[in-house]
């Protein structure tokens, strides 16, 4: 028989501290859907997604009922669509609409993979796809888009960085009547991973199998609650140890749900992404974990160190729990999706500079940050370049998901609703980086030795 304490711990993690499976994401390769006729290609895409992922939602609900643990999102990621555009030509938005239709048919929350990988240069289909992103995101509801503009091995494609500044602005402008929502579904990556199950940056890499099922577990609330039970004078190595043990338990649940879902869907199990992904709900915040560790508010000096420890401890616990850890795995810091970050940004404790420093030690990057509506494309490009440089030099994934709040200025707020949350417009430096951005070209790959 199980120990009553263990049983109660599991129940309290789920019922009181928001432990959930944040997403089950099926990755589907669309390589065999490529056709020189774009309409035929779109039909094949729609059919393949509906055929393989048709039961994704019902299986998720079944497993959720069996184990009593919520599975919040069911999603699909596909091969970067720029590859299909390269074969078929034509208007890439047709693909976006086919993906959106398929997502609606099978009842999932998001579909990712309206993507292009251009870290070293543009090939057939890449530029067409990138230029179509603003329209694609404005004319569809569930499609998410990402573009990889740099990597540690290739350096940073500054022509793509320049382009993406304009694309992010245009995307926000085209959706300005809908809280600039388009920009919340667009991520720019450096060192993008091929098996990330989290949106908006999920796509199904070309090195993956035809179809796989991956899960993203969450649980910032659980970690915060365990830390709240520790004495305030416990040394940080003890804090780290506690986080590690908690991450272990959370990851085991992810592994259980993922392997069972994969088996029922007749697909192979991909990875568990053990990211601490916050939601705007009270008690589901990464910022509150940092505050529980001992900061008055997230963004105070000491935040980077606390986050570095948290991120590392989460990975260590997770790696012990599952041999299939992958994706982004770490702590997410999306400002608008985290109640503690929103408060800290509103009070001015959390600045974009501090967030940038935090991204050097945590799992992704400048995520869900609302910036003034008059921010120029060049400034957005420069922020992307800064963030990509951090990722490139530190051999880690970094990303930028900024939402220019068209028509709004500092002090005002955007509200996306649901898991995407709400956030205040954060001030940026206004001195111009235009000459540097206009240069374009490439920042060469960094040295991998002589590291100091």
């Amino acid at each position, binding site marked *: 028989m199980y120990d009553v304490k263990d049983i109660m711990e599991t129940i309290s993690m789920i019922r009181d501290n928001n432990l959930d499976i944040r997403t089950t994401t099926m990755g589907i390769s669309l390589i065999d859907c490529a056709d020189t006729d774009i309409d035929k290609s779109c039909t094949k895409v729609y059919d393949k997604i509906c055929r393989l992922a048709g039961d994704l939602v019902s299986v998720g609900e079944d497993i959720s*009922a069996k184990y009593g643990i919520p599975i919040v999102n069911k999603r699909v990621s596909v091969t970067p669509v720029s590859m299909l555009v390269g074969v078929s030509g034509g208007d890439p938005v047709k693909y976006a609409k086919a993906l959106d239709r398929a997502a609606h048919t099978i009842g999932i929350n998001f579909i990712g993979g309206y993507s292009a990988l251009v870290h070293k240069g543009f090939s057939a289909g890449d530029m067409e796809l990138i230029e179509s992103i603003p329209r694609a995101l404005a004319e569809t509801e569930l499609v998410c888009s990402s573009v990889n503009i740099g990597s540690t091995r290739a350096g940073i494609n500054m022509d793509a960085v320049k382009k993406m500044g304009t694309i992010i602005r245009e995307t926000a402008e085209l959706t300005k009547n809908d809280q600039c929502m388009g920009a919340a579904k667009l991520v720019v990556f450096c060192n993008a991973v091929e098996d990330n199950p989290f949106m908006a940056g999920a796509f199904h890499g070309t090195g993956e199998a035809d179809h796989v099922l991956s899960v993203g577990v969450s649980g910032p609330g659980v970690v915060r609650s365990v830390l709240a039970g520790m004495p305030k004078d416990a040394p940080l190595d003890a804090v780290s140890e506690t986080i590690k043990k908690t991450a272990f*338990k959370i990851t085991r*649940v992810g592994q*259980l749900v993922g392997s069972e879902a994969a088996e029922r869907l007749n697909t192979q199990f991909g990875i568990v992404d053990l990211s601490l992904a916050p939601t705007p709900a009270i008690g589901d915040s990464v910022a509150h974990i940092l505050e529980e560790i001992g900061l008055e508010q997230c963004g105070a000096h000491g935040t980077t160190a606390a986050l570095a420890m948290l991120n590392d401890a989460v990975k260590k616990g997770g790696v012990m729990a599952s041999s299939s850890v992958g994706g982004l795995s770490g702590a997410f810091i999306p400002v608008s999706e985290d109640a503690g970050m929103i408060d800290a940004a509103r009070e001015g404790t959390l600045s974009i500079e501090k967030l940038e420093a935090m991204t050097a030690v945590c799992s992704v990057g400048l995520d869900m940050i609302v910036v003034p509506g008059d921010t120029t494309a060049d400034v957005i490009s420069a922020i992307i370049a800064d963030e990509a440089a951090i990722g490139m030099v530190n051999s880690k994934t970094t990303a930028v998901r900024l939402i220019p709040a068209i028509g709004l200025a500092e002090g005002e707020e955007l509200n996306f609703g649901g898991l995407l949350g709400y956030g205040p417009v954060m001030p940026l430096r206004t001195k111009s980086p235009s000459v540097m951005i206009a240069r374009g070209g490439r920042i060469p790959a960094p040295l991998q030795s002589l590291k100091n």
Partner: protein
Amino acid sequence: MEKQENAVLTVVGVNDVGILAKTAACVAEANGNVVQVSQIVMDKFFTMTMLIDITGLKNSIQELEDTLMKSLPGMEVHLMHENIFNSMHRI
């Protein structure tokens, strides 16, 4: 032979007459087989954990949980497949 599957039931709340009896009746009605029960009453609080063999269960775990909640109003009832506890607490 089919592999035996178990679920763990917990019932927590203010003590009253017949909680265990009502629980057992619901489980039997759903064709669940009680494998083990542990029950304690402390300071008027009733805490029970029950391991149930659900291999031959007529309906889903969810439905049995719903029935239990209806017949034990005011009590906190959780019914979950044992695998989740195995995964979390055993290496």
